[in-house]
């Protein structure tokens, strides 16, 4: 089935391991040139889905095409069109970075000279030129991920699969990978990115599919998904004075939400940050002293909680709901 404007088309994809149905009828579409964030907690079925889309695992039901080729019937054509960087950077610690990229070039059928040139260019691109002749086992986690990414790019793939590319990385390394992913996407590469990090999906993805227990529970742009949950709200902490008076003033700016405690006012606003100046002016005119004020936006975790009843990131429970919220602090 040729679908030139769709890089990935998945219909009713299933995979079972004995009695366990790891992926249960996943449907999704990824357009050419977009970054698709596949978000879900550990064990949700992200990696199993990616392994099927990259032809490493045969589906037990449904169908999928990648770059216009069926993953089950035209596996080799799929493999020629994709780059893959899997969750555990699949690197040989005894090889040097340069050897690995050159081997990858050979695997992708690049002639020797071109393979060597591509290897040099890519090592330069991911800032590993100086470490190219060191064994991979001596690389830091961030360097290994960058090398894995470079290897996946050696044949300039149409579709790039990144399975949790920043898991376990420090913030600086994570940012470096994000910048590289954005740059690749700007050059026209379609990126299918699995992640368990909300911020990663929010920052990078044009569209997000949220998977839980083998099923897609929500799909759309990060903004549209968050908008489904509700408007942002202003959360203000009073320095002194009565909460009743503050609530009366804030009710003119937006819709009051039940207060969390005796010193905090929550007001839902329609225009987000644009409503903050109005709130500040109204409070100032009423002579109410505010200790802090912040705009709290719904997050993808709120979307996940809304759809599944539990949080996406490890260590969060229903009781600490709101901690994953995306806050914009404003000094009062």
């Amino acid at each position, binding site marked *: 089935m040729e679908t030139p404007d769709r890089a990935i088309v998945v219909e009713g994809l299933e995979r079972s391991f004995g009695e366990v149905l790891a992926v249960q009828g996943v449907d999704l579409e990824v357009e050419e040139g977009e970054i698709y964030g596949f978000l879900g907690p550990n064990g949700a079925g992200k990696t199993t889905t990616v392994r099927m889309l990259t032809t*490493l695992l045969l589906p037990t039901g449904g169908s999928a095409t990648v770059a216009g080729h069926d993953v089950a019937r035209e596996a080799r054509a799929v*493999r020629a069109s994709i780059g893959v960087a899997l969750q*555990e950077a699949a690197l*040989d610690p005894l*090889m040097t970075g340069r*050897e690995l990229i050159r*081997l990858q070039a050979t695997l992708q059928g690049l002639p020797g000279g071109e393979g060597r040139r591509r290897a040099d260019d890519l090592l330069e691109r991911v800032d590993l030129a100086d470490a190219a002749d060191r064994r991979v086992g001596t690389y830091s986690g961030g360097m290994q991920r960058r090398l894995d990414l470079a290897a996946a790019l050696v044949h300039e793939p149409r579709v790039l699969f990144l399975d949790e590319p920043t898991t376990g990385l420090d913030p600086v390394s994570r940012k470096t990978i994000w910048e590289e992913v954005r740059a690749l996407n700007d050059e026209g590469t379609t990126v299918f990115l699995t992640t368990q990090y909300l911020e990663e999906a929010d920052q990078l993805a044009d569209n997000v599919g949220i998977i839980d227990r083998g099923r897609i529970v929500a799909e759309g742009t990060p903004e549209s998904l968050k908008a489904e949950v509700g408007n942002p709200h202003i959360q203000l902490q009073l320095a002194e004075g009565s909460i009743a008076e503050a609530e009366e003033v804030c009710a003119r700016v937006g819709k009051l939400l039940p207060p969390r405690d005796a010193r905090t006012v929550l007001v839902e606003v329609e225009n987000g940050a644009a409503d903050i100046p109005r709130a500040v002016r109204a409070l100032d005119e009423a002579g109410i002293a505010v200790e802090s004020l912040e705009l709290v936006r719904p997050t993808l975790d709120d979307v996940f909680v809304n759809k599944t009843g539990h949080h996406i990131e490890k260590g969060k429970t229903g009781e600490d709901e709101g901690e994953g919220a995306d806050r914009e602090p404003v000094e009062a």
Partner: protein
Amino acid sequence: MSELAKNARVVRALGMRSIRQTFRRPQLMAPILVFPTLLLAIQTGGAGSAVDLPGFPPVQGFLQFMLAGAMMQSLMLAGNSGGIALAVDIEMGFTDRLFSAPIPRFTIVLGRLAGTAALGLLASLWFLAIGLIFGAEIHSGVLAALIAVFLVTSTAMAVGAIGAAIALRTGSASVVQGLFPLVLVVLFLSSAFFPNDLMIQPAKTIAEYNPLSFVVEGIRGPIISPVDATEELEAVAAIAGIVALGLLLSARALRHRLRVG
């Protein structure tokens, strides 16, 4: 570039990686050259008078007799090491890199076997050199050396195919490593280290039918006596049998691995 040439390039590249991997990991290299060399030295030094036993084949010295056994031990452990290295690749996810490349999947196994064969070649040259340095006579000269190189290299590949099959099936380096004693048992139940005529039952019968005995005799024959075509054909047939079994098991194990992911 034709499909065949492309595949040959892939096999060569994977074979080169396999050789580099062995040289860079001492625990893979040691069983291939160090252990058999030590065993050869100990046996030759300690049991040299065995050649005087009635029924022992006529040889110039015990080292001349033992060279084939040392080569067999080396190639068997090379096959086992190749299996361990493949299992390590599976454990660390490196095979996913290979399986997600647009290459026929049999080239992945052939690449590994090419590396094992190269190590077999190295082992045969190493022990021929040791034999010559320490005074062993190579009775049929260059032809004996060429036959030894051919048989050792091809047997290494055949045994490597069985190692690869076990690695693909189990995906566990410790399981493949656990076969190390079994490899030695199979080898000791052949004529690698002792003439078949001097063995007692049931080892004698087992050794008589052990395919490795045919290979050993095929290597040893031209070293200690004139070339016997029948002996060499039996060795080639035994290797062909091991190759066929190894490739069949590897193909099935590869299909299994791709099915279970």
